[in-house]
């Protein structure tokens, strides 16, 4: 029977950690209890994007968007909304029109400025059902290329679209396919890079969790275009939901004869295997990834030869990022011109960003290239929490740089970001406010790359370590002004001499904060002061005796008994005991504690 209502429960990693599995089973129980199970369809989907408001439940046909749903709320949704048609108002994610009526979800600030090309099926289909993928024109793009296009025709279409790699480098996808196509060999491979190692990034994971077949279909198209019969998806084992959904999707595709020999009876063979990575950042670098896929140590290889010439098992290999593949079926079905109509002159289409840090709407957003940072932060992201001021945004993760507040009107595309000393990266976008110390941020990213360096080449292994120590001395107030200049020189040395992209980009966060926030570094060095009050060695907590009313709250909050004083008398902090945790700040009714 046709179900009159569809209940979609988000099964992305964010909402799953918010208990959406239990919400799903509670729906099952309650629907059964009310005898509704045959009229209502219950589906677990991929990510809706608005992770900050999770767990999310959407009810169709009305398209009612419920946020922060708890297991206890399910019964009310079933009895009120599903049975009686009365939406549960207190759970609605709603914005009102001027006349007081509810805005449609696509009109709300978070979704209005987005354009969902790659994420088109996420939060709409059940990722564990190949039939639902088929309903949205699934595997039609593959059918089209095999029945109507030559391999070169496919490559020309991708070139014409202007699609560039979404994994960080931004290299022309069509050109890459051409190189792999032109390499002569009886065996070739198609590889999908799903390592996604940037801290704070979850674009690729969400796409794999929400629409795994889209990636599989794109790899099949790539296989046809370059002449490969075997594909590998390299995905980190730390993404268990993505791995599981990929396994299910590959199994279903094989069952339908969509993967395997003589696909759909059209005479083309292609199959895909998964390779699980152990979660090393360097294994996202393409040559290290190839080594790891072969079962070797995850260390980069010298380039050239490029993978398109000599890649996996020494055979010509095409390697693209998950999101890059996510665009392919849409380019084939809607045409290169449609794709190229979105974006800026040299950056076409859309880009998915994982929005995190000091921002109200943390989550996953997909925007047309050329959208300004201001639109992302102020409109889509809903601004900075607690009325704080925007200070900078970090793009490109540990390989990227920061965009300071004065450049908030920068249009986001590959070339503009490079021009201001950052980079697109894979799509992490971390927002910082006035409480973030930029030296500390640079140190955080560098600590990550030092940790993740594979150690094969000296500039990266030792250079970054020394750079980290210098940064550390800045945060402790023991660095000199000459050290700042030395740091900068070392940055350029590491960039120019490292073997792979990890080392070549590791100093970027240091360089870009030095460029835009040099005064903050100088303040640490000259005045031994951390303006944001983050660097522990440079802050000290004191109680202003003129303001303190002796309420004893700070004394009770202090975990190390560093505060003394009689009731109704000014209190004092013993600096030798103080661990600078800031617990005393919280709760002081008179703002008497200064740092």
């Amino acid at each position: 029977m046709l179900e009159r209502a569809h209940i979609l429960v988000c099964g992305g990693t964010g909402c799953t950690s918010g208990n959406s599995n239990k919400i799903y089973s509670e729906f099952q129980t309650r629907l059964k209890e009310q005898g509704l199970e045959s009229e209502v369809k219950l589906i677990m989907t991929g990510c809706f994007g608005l992770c900050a408001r999770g767990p999310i439940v959407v009810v169709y046909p009305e398209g009612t968007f419920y946020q922060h749903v708890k297991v206890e709320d399910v019964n009310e949704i079933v009895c009120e909304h599903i049975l009686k048609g009365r939406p549960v108002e207190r759970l609605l994610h709603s914005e009102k029109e001027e006349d007081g009526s509810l805005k449609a979800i696509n009109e709300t600030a978070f979704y209005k400025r987005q354009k969902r090309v790659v994420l088109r099926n996420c939060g709409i289909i059940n990722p564990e059902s190949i039939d639902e993928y088929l309903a949205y024109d699934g595997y039609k793009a593959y059918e089209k290329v095999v029945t109507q296009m030559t391999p070169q025709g496919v490559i020309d279409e991708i070139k014409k679209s202007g699609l560039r790699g979404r994994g960080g480098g931004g290299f022309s996808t069509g050109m890459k396919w051409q190189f792999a196509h032109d390499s002569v060999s009886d065996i070739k491979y198609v590889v999908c890079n799903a390592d996604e190692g940037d801290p704070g990034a979850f674009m690729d994971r969400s796409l794999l969790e929400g629409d795994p077949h889209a990636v599989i279909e794109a790899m099949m198209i790539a296989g046809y275009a370059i002449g490969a019969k075997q594909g590998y998806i390299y995905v980190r084992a730390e993404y268990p939901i993505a791995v599981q959904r990929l396994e299910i999707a590959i199994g279903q595709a094989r069952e339908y004869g969509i993967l395997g020999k003589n696909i759909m009876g059209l005479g083309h063979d292609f199959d895909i295997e998964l390779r699980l990575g152990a979660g090393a950042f360097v294994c996202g670098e393409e040559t290290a990834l190839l080594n790891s896929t072969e079962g070797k140590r995850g260390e980069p290889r010298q380039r050239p030869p490029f993978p398109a010439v000599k890649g996996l098992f020494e055979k010509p290999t095409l390697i693209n990022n998950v999101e890059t593949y996510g665009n392919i079926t849409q380019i084939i079905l809607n045409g290169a011109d449609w794709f190229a109509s979105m974006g800026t002159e040299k950056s076409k289409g859309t880009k998915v960003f994982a929005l995190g840090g000091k921002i109200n709407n943390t989550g996953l957003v997909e925007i047309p290239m050329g959208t300004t940072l201001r639109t992302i932060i102020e409109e889509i992201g809903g601004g900075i929490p607690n009325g704080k001021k925007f200070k900078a945004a970090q793009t490109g993760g540990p390989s990227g740089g920061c965009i300071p507040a004065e450049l908030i009107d920068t249009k986001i595309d590959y070339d503009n970001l490079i021009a201001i000393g950052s980079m697109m990266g894979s799509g992490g976008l971390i927002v910082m406010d006035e409480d973030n110390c930029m030296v500390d941020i640079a140190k955080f990213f560098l600590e990550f790359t030092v940790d993740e360096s594979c150690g094969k080449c000296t500039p990266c292994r030792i250079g970054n370590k020394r750079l980290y120590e210098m940064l550390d001395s800045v945060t402790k107030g023991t660095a000199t002004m000459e050290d700042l200049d030395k740091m900068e020189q070392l940055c350029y040395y590491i960039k120019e001499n490292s073997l792979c992209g990890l080392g070549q980009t590791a100093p970027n966060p240091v360089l870009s904060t030095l460029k835009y926030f040099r005064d903050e570094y100088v303040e640490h060095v000259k005045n031994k002061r951390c303006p944001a009050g983050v660097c522990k060695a440079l802050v000290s907590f004191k109680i202003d005796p003129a303001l303190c009313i002796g309420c004893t709250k700070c004394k009770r909050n202090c975990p190390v008994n560093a505060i003394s004083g009689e009731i109704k008398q000014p209190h004092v902090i013993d600096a030798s005991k103080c661990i600078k945790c800031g617990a005393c700040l919280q709760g002081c009714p008179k703002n008497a504690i200064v740092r």
Partner: protein
Amino acid sequence: MKTLAELQAIRDRMKSQMASRGTDADDIRIVVGMATCGIAAGARPVLNAIVEEVENRKLTNVKVTQTGCIGMCKLEPLVDVIMPGSEKVTYVHVTPEKARRIIASHVVNGNVVTEYTVDGEKA
């Protein structure tokens, strides 16, 4: 192995099953009053009959939803039919049989079944 035709058949079948998951301004909406008063008066079988009819006739542009009490309890079960571009038509005292006729006549062919409306009943 599935052939191209078999895959297309799955697409078509799934498309109609999943039609309710998009919201399109051109859709026809059928709204059934499902508050306590509606349910007591027999709105559930009416709703089921409508859904069945929509499925049998493969009406992918029709959305069936419910609403709460609109204050005319003695006229329940109430069913609204909203065709894009025209005024809402409210049917009263609807039964599963009446519902089927409303779909055949009004939803499919655009002819309002006047005798089932408030004014029609009075006349």
